């Protein structure tokens, strides 16, 4: 049985995250690992004292004091984590998921997800973490890091949640988006018969070959619409296409550029995640 990894925190996306994951789990018949990652104690802000005084037993007293602070916060975080996990599990159960595995870990989110990556089919994350404003245009710092580090499909949940009637594949002909097409043609994730939009944004006419992709999608029964545009700002074109055509799910390949490249030019994928209000399925 395939497994989905759902990374949950106290953010506003938590409920949508579970609802989306439950839907996918039922579609492809998967179990769910619900993961909550606690901060490391060293990430806590410690109390400060600028006296510059080295009193008696300066070292052990300081250690004692820092430990006490971390201990209190750690305990609170643990309790909160438990509540978050239980809440998520309740939503999943209500949605009819039977096999739910709660995973409560401590450490860096990216490293923790990497540990689990190999054994799961797909990873779910909210667009932003709990400390970020839901209306903010910035991405959660964790999401960006995870998106770059992972090799499995990443389902990015947004604040919009509705049944998927039509989905859009942003096609650039690269390996990662081919993988995406293979996935949705092979797996029962999206019901064959749904409306599929294939949007190609190329710099010059004929840059990207599409016939193979269209054939593949039509062969399994998706009602495929192809649109080809010439524009150098792929992210803007895709975002407005999503709105105009009431797309419910955006599927795309991710971060095919090197980090250096994206740092200098601005990554299309990162700005897509920012610009589109619908859930996004990212393939590597």
């Amino acid at each position: 049985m395939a497994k989905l990894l759902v990374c949950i925190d106290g953010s506003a996306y938590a409920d949508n995250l579970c609802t989306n994951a439950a839907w996918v789990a039922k579609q492809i018949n998967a179990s769910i690992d619900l993961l909550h990652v606690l901060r490391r104690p060293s990430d806590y802000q410690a109390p400060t004292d600028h006296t510059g005084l080295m009193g008696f037993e300066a070292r052990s007293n300081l250690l004692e004091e820092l430990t006490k602070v971390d201990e209190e916060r750690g305990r609170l975080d643990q309790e909160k984590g438990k509540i978050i996990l239980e809440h998520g599990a309740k939503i999943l159960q209500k949605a009819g998921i039977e096999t739910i595995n709660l995973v409560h870990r401590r450490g860096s989110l990216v490293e923790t997800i990497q540990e689990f990556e190999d054994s799961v089919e797909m990873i779910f994350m909210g667009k932003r973490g709990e400390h970020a404003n839901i209306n903010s245009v910035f991405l959660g710092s964790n999401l960006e890091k995870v998106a770059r580090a992972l090799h499995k499909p990443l389902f990015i949940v947004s604040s919009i949640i509705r049944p998927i009637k039509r989905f859009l594949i942003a096609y650039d002909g690269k390996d990662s988006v081919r993988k995406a097409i293979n996935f949705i043609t092979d797996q029962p994730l999206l019901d064959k018969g749904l409306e599929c939009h294939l949007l190609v944004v190329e710099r010059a006419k004929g840059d990207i070959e599409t016939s193979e992709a269209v054939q593949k999608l039509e062969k399994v029964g998706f009602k495929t619409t192809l649109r080809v545009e010439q524009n150098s700002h792929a992210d803007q074109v895709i975002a407005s296409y999503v709105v105009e055509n009431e797309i419910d799910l955006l599927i795309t390949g991710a971060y095919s550029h090197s980090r250096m490249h994206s740092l200098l030019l601005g990554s299309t994928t990162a700005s897509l995640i920012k610009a589109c209000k619908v859930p996004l399925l990212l393939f590597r």
Partner: protein
Amino acid sequence: MLSLSLSYMKRNWLGNIRNDILAGMVVALALIPEAIAFSIIAGVDPKVGLYASFCIAIVIAFIGGRSGMISAATGAMALVMVLLVKEHGLEYLLAATILTGVLQIIAGFFRLGSLMRFVSRSVVTGFVNALAILIFMAQLPEFKGAGIQMYGMVALGLAIIYIFPRFTKAVPSPLISIITITAISIYFGMDLRTVGDMGELPSTLPIFLLPDIPLNLDTLRIIFPYSLTLMAVGLLESLMTATIVDDLTDTSSNKNRECMGQGVANIVSGFFGGMAGCAMIGQSVINIKSGGRGRLSTLFAGLFLLFLLLVLGDWVRQIPMAALVAVMIMVSIGTFSWSSFGNLRTHPKTSSLVMITTVIVVVITHDLAMGVFVGVLTSALFFARRVSRLLKIESHLSENAEERTYKVYGQVFFASAGIFSDSFDFKEVVQNITIDVSGAHFWDLSAVGALDKVVMKFRREGTIVHLLGMNKASATIVDRLAVYDKPNALELMPKH
């Protein structure tokens, strides 16, 4: 690669900007009196220690292995170089500092940092206590021939240091103490020795200079022993401090990178007219206490230190030594592990003995490296003795009284080999002897030799010996080393 370095930047440099800068300032203020005091201990101008602190702090901020740790001119290192400075002068000290750096880089390259695991907790406590005692003792000459004014000012300085934090924790109390003492002494025109009397203070940025020494073997012969000790002391204190900061912040550090970082920092310090230094336990604790966590705190401590000196040089000159002595007494009190007195009663006697031995050796020789060496040696001996007791030999006679079986359990090595061979009864007359060593471990030549001796002795008495259950590790060492199972066994055996 860049993604790595970006998160690295965030974690090490930019994750804690406000606190790092504030903590760096607190540390810089505390570094000035210490650097001056340690220069005076070493017998050089205050500027040598101050340049060293500046160079080392800045270099370590970038290449050290432990973020948030403060390195500068230290008392431990200053104590080592006293004789070198007295006999050969400053230029030789600078050369020795550079050579120390080279040796530390080599040590880091060969991962000698991992040797730290042989330094037990008791030795670390001994080191720290000895350091505190030496720093305190180094202050005593300041009182020699001084009048009542000196005692009074030191007492007042200490009182301010310890009482002021009760009113506010926003300002470093040692700074307040220094300012107050200086103001009083200037106002009343007291006849107190000042920092300016102790030698030259920095008036410019440090300048790159090659040490003015003959480059020959004689020079090397003079500086090498000092550099070797400096290397050991510097790495020891740095790695101990790194462990302390690891514990305090609940994070980990790269010890070998720290070794190499200390090396580069000392080389830079030597070329810019500074003395050798290392990580500082006290300052690092102050940094963490003030909220410093990142590399920015270390960098800022160095930069702010230099800024203060260049801007306030004329004022620093007028600080009475009494104020510095008060600060250094605070440092020694804060460094000393007072709980080790209480622990004498509760800790194992051997641990206490190791700690006390380390302290005594250091206080007598003024050489922290020697103290640690003796401490490690003592703890190793105690450990060997304790493990040698993990040996038990049982025996029983078969019902027909013709065969005796010895069962050996535990560790057989040099310290327990004697106990091992004494446990067999050679006077008893039996036809067969079985030695079951399946529960034993033979560690070294002495163990193998002892087993050989036992087997040979039984054979010479006409007893047939069976060995049972040599476990693998024992078997390899016995296979390679033992003689009893070789054809010419008896000739190979030393006659007894």
